[in-house]
């Protein structure tokens, strides 16, 4: 049984066909890459699976639970964590609060606990704080725990976002261009982090990435998306040598 399964998904924005007959199978523990030129529809696919858009056609399953029609927060609570291409962090919240917030669906104390500060609430909050600090330590940002996120360096912000996504204890982690805007040094660090996540956590990763180096090194299977259609799927080697992919990225060679 695959972890995440998408069958025959198509989506229209008005008259524009953004995604066409998209199929996906991610196995547990797999790192699956999604590459393609700008505007190919990669982020749209993320948004379709995570419930921000409702696909016009097609079905999405997480471990055989159908996700279509659920609200984004319900889909997230079922086990899809994500980061965003342009980093969506909360301006006036501390790093620690970010990570604790991702455990929202696991809160059991309810309104009574929130209003009256019951022992159960104190216990759960302390537990969640402990887990959050552990994650922050793992990502090397524990020293920023009480800082507001905009005060952090860019690379640290990216790591906070990733720690936040992992605090949800997801089954599949969606990473939307985790290395965007990074210098070569930060890039190497980020790749190391993703590798560690793969080792230490029991989850599958679905990765959108522009940089070939990252995808080729990290992913086990790669799909290439062009104008909303998958033109090639396979292992990194197969993709690298696929003439269609080369065409899409570099343009066609003109034969004399």
């Amino acid at each position, binding site marked *: 049984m695959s972890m995440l399964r998408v069958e025959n998904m198509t989506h229209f924005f008005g008259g524009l066909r953004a995604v066409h007959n998209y199929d996906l199978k991610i196995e547990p523990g797999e790192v699956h890459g999604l590459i393609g030129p700008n505007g190919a529809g990669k982020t749209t696919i993320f948004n379709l699976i995570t419930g921000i858009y409702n696909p016009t056609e097609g079905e999405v399953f997480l471990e055989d639970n159908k996700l279509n029609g659920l609200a984004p927060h319900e889909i997230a609570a079922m086990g899809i964590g*994500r980061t*965003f291409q342009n980093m969506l962090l*909360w301006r006036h919240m501390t790093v620690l609060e970010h990570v604790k917030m991702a455990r*929202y669906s696991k809160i059991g104390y309810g309104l009574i606990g929130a209003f009256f*500060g019951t022992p159960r609430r104190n216990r759960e909050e302390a537990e969640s704080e402990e887990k959050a600090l552990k994650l922050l330590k793992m990502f090397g940002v524990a020293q920023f725990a009480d800082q507001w996120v905009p005060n952090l360096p860019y690379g640290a912000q990216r790591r906070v976002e990733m720690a936040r996504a992992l605090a*949800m204890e997801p089954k599949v982690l969606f990473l939307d261009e985790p290395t965007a805007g990074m210098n070569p040094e930060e890039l190497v660090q980020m790749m190391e982090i993703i590798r560690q996540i793969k080792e230490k956590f029991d989850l599958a990763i679905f990765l959108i990435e522009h940089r070939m180096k990252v995808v080729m090194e990290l992913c086990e299977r790669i799909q290439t998306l062009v104008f909303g259609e998958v033109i090639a799927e396979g292992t990194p080697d197969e993709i690298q040598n696929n003439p269609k992919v080369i065409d899409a990225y570099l343009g066609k060679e003109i034969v004399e």
Partner: protein
Amino acid sequence: MESTSEKLSSPSMLSRINIRAWVSKVPLLGWLIGALIAVGLEMAIGTPLARALGLSKAPTLFGFLIMLKKPLLIPGAALYLLLIYLLPIGLIARFAAAALNRLAAILADFSTVFSILIHLALLYLALHLWSGLSDYRVLVVKLTLIAVIVTLSLNVINGYMGEFSCSHPGFMALGAYAASVFTVSLFVNDKLFGVAVLPAAIGPFFFPIALFLGGVAAAIGAMVVAIPSFRTRGDYLAIISLAFMFIVKSLIENLEVVGGPRGLGSQPDWANLPTVFVTTVICIWVINNFVRSTLGKALNAVRDNEMAADAMTVNTRRTKFLAFLFAAFWAGVAGGLFAHVLRYVNPSTFGIQKLAEVLAMVYFGGLNSVYGAIVGATSISLLGEALRPLEIFKWIIIPLLLILVMIFRPTGLIAFKEFDARQLIQPKK
């Protein structure tokens, strides 16, 4: 090296640093006991001292009213302020700080809850004795405490959740009328609702129920604003909430059952100072508990980025719904208290002027902060009373002050600060 650098700094610099240093060493207990002693002093020698200084009676509101009405009496009033309030508090803070720090440490070590209760009792005692000297003071204290509840509850929506809601006077009106109808119809012989059903003697025990019902009525009304908030944000929601305020106002004006535009009077006199004080403390406690829990922090997440909140499993609809209902509940409770303090309400009280007042308190004090709400509500309502002799100029000075705060501190005086009672009662080192 150190000695030379000490010599280099000018004496005025040094004394300023000293004042700062010893003020920061005074525990909250010190200020409270200082205030209590000042109040005791006023009770003992206030009137004779005022006479001796050329004032007709002890100033009711720190002498501001006298100073503004009769500028010739400024020296006398200022001296009174200095001798009765500033000097005793200052002396206690200066010389008893070490002993009180030790006492605060003992209390805090013994039990946090007990220590907090002691602090609250001291605060209440100071307020009670201070306001005991004139009816006007009692009214000012009660209205200020009610303003704290309203400001704090509006801060939940406007500060913590970041929506600009204008419906708070409407919520207050719903609470005021619901609580009043409950108490007047059951316990008072009144021409609108006829004879009392229950004996007035047991009435005070039902007052919390009346306040609760007022809160519930406001919360039910808040659904009208909460449901549109799922689909729209910002300016549009502000207009919807403003519309709600006017709807409530004209609804009550046209409801002859509750007196229509003439208003509803003869509420029983149950909103005494202890009741108002305890309600305010409970309100601060519950709201502070809520906004510091992860469920409450979800409001901040929704404010700062709703899409990210959704992706992090936060149920944004539930969060918004809850915030509106919760805030409206407390506004309703405040409305119920307000009606029973004035013992008369009419719909025109809950109009645009009230809205401006409450918004000023929220934005003056500071967004997203319990301290801010307390400071904003207290300073604006005391300022409003103190500047009363200036009549129309009051409405120039207060807005001007607000503009200055907005220029120098755009989010208010004490914004984005967590209120922690445990930290507040700690001894200072």
